[in-house]
């Protein structure tokens, strides 16, 4: 049951990354980092364990959203979904991410929620997370001992659990330069437009003409974490993407997912539509006009 009253906590307002890391080292799992807060503020009504909220509001150097054709895309910890949506570089080079941002929650939440927050939440329904998992990327984490990069492939452990240590601050996400002929897309299904996904999917395909060299195919809401679909990826790798292949892929998807019944849909329905959604997201990636890419 909800409450109109938030739990007591100390709001800590560090002014540098170093100070933030020091606070994390001190308070560890008794603390939570506040960037957009769209998940955290709800959690604070129920979570008795958070005594210290470490706000990034005054910390400089975390709002970089930068695309460099040689280095790729960097998304700082305070970059919001709305920032991503406003970026022509993202729209041109990472269509899956841009499409996920476009349908993400509501305008109010997009103005506040951060991309890194979506990743750190480790929800199997994360829309931007699904898109980024497909394009691939690595998180830069920092604690008192130093920095480390961790690939998104290794980051989500289980529902709500990540490889981040309690004293680590997520500084930024790095997404590689799009490969030659890379095409990506994101699609989802919801109960109403302004809703969490009941099922979502993202793909990133390296195409040479009709042939797919390499594919990353991601599906959400069908397991405890976002899932890559290795069988589907294998079927696409080196293959010409024909209607027959898409039909075969569509039939295989069900063997790679393990959805459950929840408030948003049923396992049965998710199993029924997962193949359709994967087929459609591949088609969407391939059919996108060049200037949409």
């Amino acid at each position, binding site marked *: 049951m909800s409450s109109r009253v938030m739990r007591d906590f100390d709001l800590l307002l560090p002014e540098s990354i170093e100070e933030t890391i020091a606070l994390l080292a001190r308070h560890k799992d008794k603390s939570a980092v506040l960037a957009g807060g769209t998940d955290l503020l709800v959690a604070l009504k129920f979570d008795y364990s958070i005594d210290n909220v470490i706000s990034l509001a005054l910390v400089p150097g975390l709002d970089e959203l930068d695309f460099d054709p040689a280095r790729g895309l960097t998304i700082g910890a305070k970059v919001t979904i709305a920032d991503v949506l406003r970026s022509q570089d993202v729209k041109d080079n990472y269509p899956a991410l841009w499409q996920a941002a476009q349908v993400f929650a509501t305008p109010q939440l997009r103005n506040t929620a951060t991309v890194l927050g979506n990743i750190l939440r480790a929800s199997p329904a994360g829309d931007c997370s699904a898109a980024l998992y497909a394009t691939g990327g690595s998180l830069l984490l920092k604690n008192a001992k130093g920095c480390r990069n961790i690939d998104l492939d290794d980051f989500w452990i289980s529902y709500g659990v990540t490889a981040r240590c309690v004293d680590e601050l997520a500084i930024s996400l790095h997404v590689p330069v799009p490969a030659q002929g890379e095409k990506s897309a994101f699609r989802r299904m919801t*109960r109403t437009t302004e809703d969490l996904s009941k099922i979502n999917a993202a793909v990133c395909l390296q195409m040479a003409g009709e042939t797919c060299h390499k594919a990353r195919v991601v599906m959400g809401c069908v397991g405890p974490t976002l899932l890559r679909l290795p069988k589907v990826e294998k079927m696409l790798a080196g293959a010409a993407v024909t209607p027959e292949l898409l039909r075969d892929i569509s039939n295989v998807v069900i063997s790679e997912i393990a959805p459950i019944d929840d408030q948003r849909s049923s396992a049965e329905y998710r199993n*029924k539509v997962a193949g*359709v959604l994967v087929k459609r997201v591949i088609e969407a990636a391939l059919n996108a006009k060049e200037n949409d890419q």
Partner: protein
Amino acid sequence: MSDLTVVGKRVERVDVRAKVTGGAVYAADVQMAGMLYGKIVRCYDYAHARVTELDLSKAAKCKGVIKVLGPKDVTQKEYNGSVLDMMVSSDMRGILGDIDDQSIFTTHVKHYGDAIAAVIATSEEAAERAAEKIIVTYEELPVYLTAEAARQSDARQFRPEKPGNLAFQLPEMAFPDNAYAWGEVDKSFEEADIIVEDTFYVPKQKQCQMEPGAYIALYDDQERLNCWTSTQMPKLVQKKLANLFELPMTRVRINATVIGGGFGARLGMVLEPETCALAMAVPGRPVKVLSTREEDWVTSPSRHPGKYWMKMGFKKDGTPVACDAKFENYKGAYYMDASGTAFTTGAWLGGMYKFDSLRYRGESYYTNQSVCGAFRGYGNPQTNFVMEQMVDRGCAALGVDPIEWRKKWHKTIGDDGWCIGVPYNSCALDECLDRAAKAIGWTEKRAKYKNQTGTIRRGIGVSVMNHTSGAMPMLLEHTVCDALLHQDATVTLNLACSDMGQGSHTTLRQVAAETLGFPYADVHIAAGDTDAAGFDIGAHASRTLYVGGGAVKQACEDVRKQIFDRAALELGEAVGNLYMEDKVIHVKGASNKSISVQTIADQGVNNFMNPENGELIGQPGQIQGYASFFPPHNAPPFGASIAEVEVDMETGEVKVIELVNAHDVGRAIHPGIVEGQLDGGAQQGLGMALTEETYYDEKGICLNNSFTDYKMLGPSDMPKITNILVENPDPTGPFGAKGVGEAGIVPPVGATANAIFNAIGIQILEAPITPEKILEALAEKD
């Protein structure tokens, strides 16, 4: 009626500035000196349990706590939060069998969220912290969530006086064979060439009004109980609280605060009893009780869900010979509106088509769900979902166009209305259907969408409805209005009619200004203080403009008559020779003889003697108009909706592309407000058809009592909507107006279902029609 100057105009709404600037003061905003805060402790662990131990001691010792109250610390009187019992005669009350079965705090939990105890503290936070320290031990009891479960012979009985957990069925004394009926149904079916029959499920929809419950109560130094609440029914709640706390009505005062949406959720009492009980425990201190959304969800009434069986018979030529139906609703834990909805659901059915014979049975079963009661449409959306799908199934079997069939067989002027014995006195449904069909391109699209094969299929469906303006003759209909003419010739109306956002204070003001012949700006509506206002039933049953407007009109006619009578005396002319223009009364054909309303009004108040002759200057006495108005009819609104949908055959997803609503509104006093009602109604109607349902796990724990998992359609989900206002003045309505508050929600429900039927050739029997159900139905068909 082209000479109307205020009626029919899109004047500025009286509430718009305050609402858009955030200036409106809702109950939650009210602050008072010495205010205390109440937190109600509810059972969220079980839907059915007995409290075996209640330990309030730890909570009482918490910081800031003034008092902790358990079931024994408040009145032991039982009550019924609904107000149905106050709208019928005492004889009828006995026949219906309405009972009081709610307690302020209970030791027998009957639904998720039932109230056990409460804390009064100096802050909301202190109250909530202390409430967590109350220790309740429960003995779990078996849970009954459906009528089928509740009526099992070994089921525990909710109330000894309601055996079989049958809270209500149409009583034999008023309804022979427990049915609302005419003709001989069984015999009629023998004449039918085509019979269609099925059992549907209609969902537990929630009003989702923007403002969650907020209440303040103060037992003051004159031993008066004051309650600030956004109730839809201040006068009935005043009486209900007076009865519950055994006080005369003069010692109970309702201060009606700005209402953030009602739709039935504030019909009768919700948390007024609890809040007042807390206030009476701390005399002299105001106590505020604020509901969370989740709490409001399970304490204010929802739409009645349940199984709805229907059978229809037709002759080959389309003649509807018989209709048989039964709605078994899952009433919830307390009696509330068990009788009302069980009846009206059938009344709307009976009011629609010219069946040779019809039989409807309505039954309400106690269940361990949160309570059901009034919700916009009061049974009509449920009937629309079922009746209109059955009609379309019949039309498909007959091979006739659904619009043509409806035009031929709907009831009209002279036919019995929704209440047998009260015939319809106006009906423009044919025009509604014709104009809606033309607006959406019905004929072309209906032809085009035959024999589709692709993944994305379109469909178009129609639905019609009848409703009411006020609940006469089923329920008491009465509004009192005072109209006070100030000395500057402006008027203040005093009445208890609520404006819950539907715009009634604006339209009532228009009716007043038009009747008086005054500018809109010269009239003010004062409402919401039960010390000052006379009787009114409250805002429900699409009645406020029709009945409240009737009262306003009559009170203003009284003022106008008094003005003219005095003018006639002053001018030495017969009233019939006078006319008013710009608030000056002139003599016909004599341009130099006139007197202003201002002079009459001023002389009435500031009346002096002429010192020269000792005579009074003008006529003494402040003019006040009065009406105690009982409407002569229920001015039936009719309406039609046509929906066009797109169904994805691979995912089952439905997109409503376009919705056309054409409504016989009598007269649109304020066209913008009427359109707003139809748009808002459509949002709830489409939601009931497609997404909205409160549901429980097998233990009766509510799983979606918040907006996280109860999904309403948002702005981007809404289709293109065209509203057509068919103005066919009703002979009894003020300036011909009919009620429009509920009508808009009804026909989009059936139209959407029928459009899906048209697209995929299958009827989905359970609302909401989700993609999951569509895919399942498509798979079964293959």
